[in-house]
């Protein structure tokens, strides 16, 4: 920092009312006080054990102040920080031109731009101002970098991934937007607590592989999470930059780091703890199972993952489409787990092939049930079993897992339709609609009973679907499927809805408008209105108590079930949720399993 000199401090005329901002998060610090009629600016202050707020006059050359803690004149405040991002504003190098105390940095709006502004940290010292050198260093604001993506007209003819991801240059520019907040909010927004500021800083420094390794300390599957996490509701939602501007594109940066690591062949294995001699059976190879497997194998346990289908990955391989999550990425992550020493047994339907007793006999000390929410929900409408009406699960499984998009090179046929109706508006519905378009359907319509604001899908998915030409019929609900004499679907009878009072979910309750029935021509319908718990596994685990809605009852956040030695996590415990929330469950269960297997606490309840 340039040493501020007294003669440079006269640029803002006395009596000017300043608008003051935090230099880190750019949040306005002004707080209106009706008693004085002035907008004071507020700072967080810590002096000894006392902690409180300090209000300073915003008027140039007016040095009045008050605070919630006792601050006698002459006190040098060492800890002065922004009340929003809690980043310290005390400068390491600069010193006051009068009393030589350290100075604190703020931003003020002057000369039509934001410029640095310094005040002395010694209470009562009138020194303050800006320097010319600092003014010159004010950087132009960098907007959030856009992720290049395949053109909509092109991509509806292929199954390749839609966003290409950041280039090196874009990633560097985007990472530079991060403020490196000391009390980083983004980290608290992440269910697995990735050290986001640290990995973004590494990207900023061009250390891409190190950035990926930093993420992997907390998240074994960054290439997947960077693609499918709802960052806008998690880390990016609370990003400090996002208060005044668009938040840092944390998700795209995560994906970039993971892709760089994989593409440059720099994937290294973390150090494993010495073998503990304990065996863990993980049921289900979806996001929670894979995360837990990685955590446990690193801690020295022997881990086997059981998968009922012929390919590991769970929803990542049967549900999420290729154009959103390329299967080579999933394969890469699974190979990484295999290299770590995780055993994966496919075609193993737990509950039928092995039950809890069998697993015990095979020497497993702990069992984790992470079987997901794999039961399709139907609507119980007349005509629902007509030909060419599918659950989203079946439609997606045929296309993704069974590779029906490559039919007839692959033997499994895909349902075809010229006019397709998709019912529901979550991410799965968007996946179905966009898949249908890529399978050559002429017209794809999403039918949803509430309004746009209530659509549960991620905004990015809805935007992508709309760009691709998917139609939306909102405030519309199907009541009946109409078929021909060969029992093939021909039309969907719908009713117009209106929104009423909020229901149990907090969303406005959709109410049918009597007599508003109409027909939509359709020769293929996909029902994507949610998923439930698949009960197959429970025939082998009679001791695991379930909630009335069929999901597993767990004791506290550790994921312990009512059966000793059996944990559960992910959708089967929480109900349908996201990839990252399942991973968060797995992390917590993993800590508890490790504790249980190696610690002294053997009490179950």
């Amino acid at each position, binding site marked *: 920092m340039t040493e501020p000199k007294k003669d440079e401090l006269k640029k803002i005329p006395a009596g000017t009312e300043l608008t003051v901002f935090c230099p880190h998060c750019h949040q306005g610090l002004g707080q209106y006080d009706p008693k004085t009629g002035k907008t004071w600016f507020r700072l967080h202050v810590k002096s000894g054990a006392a902690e409180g707020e300090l209000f300073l006059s915003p008027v140039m050359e007016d040095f009045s102040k008050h605070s919630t803690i006792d601050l006698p004149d002459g006190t040098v405040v060492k800890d002065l920080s922004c009340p929003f991002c809690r980043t310290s504003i005390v400068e390491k190098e600069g010193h006051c031109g009068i009393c030589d105390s350290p100075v604190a940095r703020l931003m003020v709006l002057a000369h039509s731009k934001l410029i640095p502004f310094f005040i002395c940290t010694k209470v009562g010292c009138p020194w303050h101002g800006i320097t010319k050198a600092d003014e010159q260093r004010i950087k132009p604001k960098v907007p959030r970098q856009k992720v290049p993506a395949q053109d909509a007209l092109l991509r509806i003819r292929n199954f390749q991934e839609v966003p290409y991801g950041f280039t090196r240059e874009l990633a560097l520019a985007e990472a530079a937007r991060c403020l490196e907040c000391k009390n980083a909010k983004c980290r608290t927004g992440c269910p697995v607590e990735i050290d986001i500021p640290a990995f973004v800083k590494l990207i900023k420094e061009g250390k891409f592989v190190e950035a990926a390794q930093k993420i992997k300390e907390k998240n074994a599957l960054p290439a997947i999470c960077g693609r499918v996490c709802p960052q806008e509701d998690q880390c990016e939602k609370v990003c400090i930059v996002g208060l005044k501007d668009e938040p840092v594109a944390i998700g795209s940066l995560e994906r970039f780091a993971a892709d760089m690591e994989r593409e440059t062949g720099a994937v290294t294995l973390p150090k494993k703890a010495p073998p503990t001699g304990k065996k863990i059976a993980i049921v289900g190879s979806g996001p929670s199972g894979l995360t837990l497997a990685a955590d446990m194998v690193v801690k020295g346990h022997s881990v086997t993952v059981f998968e009922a289908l012929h390919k590991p990955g769970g929803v990542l391989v049967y549900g999420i489409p290729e154009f959103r999550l390329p299967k080579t990425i999933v394969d890469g992550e699974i190979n990484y787990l295999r290299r770590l020493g995780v055993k994966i047994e496919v075609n193993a339907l737990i509950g039928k092939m092995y039950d809890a007793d069998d697993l015990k006999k095979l020497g497993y000390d702990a069992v984790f049930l992470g079987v997901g929410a794999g039961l399709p929900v*139907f609507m119980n409408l007349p005509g629902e079993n007509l030909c060419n009406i599918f659950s989203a699960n079946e439609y997606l499984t045929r296309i993704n897992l069974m590779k029906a998009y490559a039919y007839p090179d692959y033997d499994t046929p895909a349902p075809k339709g010229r006019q397709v109706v998709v019912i529901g508006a979550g991410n799965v519905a968007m996946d179905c609609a966009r898949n249908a378009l890529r399978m050559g359907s002429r017209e794809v319509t999403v039918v949803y009973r509430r309004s746009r604001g209530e659509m549960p899908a991620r905004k990015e998915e809805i935007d992508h679907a709309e760009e691709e030409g998917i139609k939306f019929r909102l405030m519309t609900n199907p009541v009946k499927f109409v078929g021909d004499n060969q029992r093939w679907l021909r039309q969907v009878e719908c009713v117009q809805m209106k929104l009423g009072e909020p229901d149990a979910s907090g969303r406005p309750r959709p109410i049918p408008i009597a007599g508003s029935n109409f027909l939509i021509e359709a020769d293929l319908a996909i029902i994507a209105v949610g998923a439930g718990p698949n009960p197959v596994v429970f025939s082998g685990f009679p001791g695991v108590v379930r909630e009335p809605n069929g999901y597993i009852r767990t004791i506290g956040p550790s994921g312990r079930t009512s059966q000793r030695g059996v944990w559960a996590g992910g959708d089967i415990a929480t109900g349908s949720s996201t990839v990252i929330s399942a991973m968060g469950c797995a992390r917590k269960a993993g800590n508890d399993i490790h504790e249980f297997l190696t610690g002294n606490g053997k009490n179950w309840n």
Partner: protein
Amino acid sequence: MYPIIDRQELAKGTMVLITVEAPQIAAKIKPGQFVVLRVNETGERIPLTVAYKDLSHGTITIIFMIVGKSTALLGSLKTGDAIKDLVGPLGAVEEFTNVGTVVGIGGGSGVAVLHHLLQGYAAAGNKVIGIMGSREKDLLILEDEMKGLCQQLIVTTDDGSYGMHGLVTDALKTLVEREKPEPIGLVVAVGPLVMMRSVCQQTKLYNLKTIVSLNPVMVDATGMCGACRVSAGGKTKFACVDGPHFDGHEVDFDELIHRNNMYVRDEKTSILHSIRAK
């Protein structure tokens, strides 16, 4: 990989018997349950009901009719070849209770499944009467095994080339109306959908409880996709987890027949494609 240790052609080569090494499945599977297999990397997942198991050798035996691309592919494997994926046991476990007399009716490759089920009923102490039918004499399978299991066995052929001339329903009619055996506690029917539908229409008249084993299209067969949904008793059921056995009087056979024909056109495409590829 699951090695095939025995392969035989039955019924003029239209039906194939394979015995596969799968000790864990053999240890758990019960009569009437099925497996899903995928022959190779590009293959479909197809459900097939198990005809026998051999615990000492850790094998299961499947008898299937060649009807399309995937069964043809499976039928083309030789002893020593292997199946890529095999998962099981699937389906609900049937409870075999003693009801007195059980009449088992089988058609086509369904006789293999019926035989396994009747083993279960015989073991539960039932008297077992068998009716099995086919188009012609050469398409009959497992006649000796059925004879060994049933107190009485009626064989029918559509063309009269062997046994009774007629359909299995004719045999059932003769049995119930003319021979009047001891009270029949249960009828079990396994075979083509049209046959099972006819049997159920008839047993409804006689007021005889009838169990059928259904074979809808399946993908994962673990209750995940709903491809196999069947209307039974006015409710939608999943044949893979709620079945494959249902009360035949509750099943909407017309709907199921249409649903099972959904991929007829694709089946032709598949076969043509595989011929061209050769």
